[in-house]
């Protein structure tokens, strides 16, 4: 499970990076970014998992003591909540820019855009 969860996280990150660098379509690049970010989130969540532990919501109010082994790590989860929200904000901005680029160049394809970009100036 150690190898599996970390390697899946790394596979996802690499896949996202691949899409961001090699895909020509702007929307596909943004999808690559989204997958990259979920890979990171999986990485953080896997490190905070505890075998046999329950979700980090107390089911009793401290009778008989609260033991940290019983609950999954809340800290990594908070960090990743932040990362998800940041991710969707970035995605929205990227989509808005892609929309504007389409409006001006009539394509999501990087090659077409670059060809268009060079013609009018310089």
């Amino acid at each position: 499970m150690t190898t599996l969860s970390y390697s899946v996280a790394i596979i996802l990150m690499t896949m996202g990076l691949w899409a961001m660098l090699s895909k020509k379509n702007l929307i596909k690049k943004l999808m690559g970014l989204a997958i990259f970010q979920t890979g990171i989130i999986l990485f953080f969540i896997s490190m905070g998992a505890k075998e046999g532990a329950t979700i980090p919501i107390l089911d009793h109010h401290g009778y008989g003591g609260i033991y940290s082994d019983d609950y999954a790590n809340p800290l990594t989860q908070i960090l990743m909540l932040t990362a998800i929200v940041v991710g969707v904000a970035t995605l929205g901005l990227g989509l808005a820019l892609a929309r504007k680029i389409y409006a001006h160049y009539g394509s999501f394809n990087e090659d077409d855009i670059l060809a268009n970009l060079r013609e009018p100036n310089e």
Partner: protein
Amino acid sequence: MLIAIEVGLLILVPCVAFVALWLRDLMSAVIVLGAYSFLMCLVWTGMGAVDVAFTEAAVGAGVSTVFFIAVLFNTTRNITFNPLDVSSKLVALVACLGFGYVLLQGVSDLPDWGDPYSPVNAGVSTYYIENAYADTHVPNLVTTVLADYRSVDTMLETTVVLIALLGIFMILKKDRPAQSDSSDTQAHDSLIIRLSARFIAPFIQLFGLYVVAHGHHSPGGGFQGGVILGTGLILMAMSMGMASAKRLLSIPRMIILAAVGVLIYAGWGAVPLVYNGYFLDYSVWESVFGSMARSHSMLIVEIGVALTVMCGMYGIYMSLVSDGGMQEGL
């Protein structure tokens, strides 16, 4: 016992991600990305991260799919594919191999999955788990750390949503408003959609309010509730048509409300400054609320978060789908 399910999901997830990137039709790819998000939520739920799964379900599977579709709606879903282009792939290949190699090198040293005594699980988080209830009287540990111990992170993260709303509005807004207020394109929309959306939307809003208010005791809180509230508004906008949605809540009003949301958060945190306390130190309210001071303060800042996120999601959708003109859309 859950591990069997986890293993199955972990094998399935990269396959779906691969398919999403491989498909040469943007619309299909976006839809498959939604499925990928759903599966990812299950993986995280299995690891005990319910709040994260909740957020991802709301944000990843719900709202971002709608954002993608909103952009594709006015553009194209075709991908031009050029099999002869190798040079850029080569650079990407080198970068990815290097990146993957560096990451794998680091993995060999990491502690085992699920080890409760690894540094991450035995470090600071032990304090949170064992003392959070005594400190704050809130059983949801994620909410306590989110809205109290690391509150300033959350404030900045809410600010990020506000920034995205402002930025998208500014990027897409046309300098001159379109002259003709074109007729409501949704007027001849299907009766079933209109009726069912109108029926379901209040329940979504109610559920969103519940998620915000009940975040202390169950998974949920400002972000999740805010996204669900925003989704309810998006549903109304989809079924009633752009013109009525615009009448309901215009974008400038959204921006003001979103800024007010962050202002509620930061303003509540700034009150201690008057007593020369630290920013976001909720203990100054103990004279008013007694031992529940931190709990109630958390609820108030979560309301601020929910307001900003609701307006943020709805405003971003409205800007994207109508191309900034607020005239017609999905």
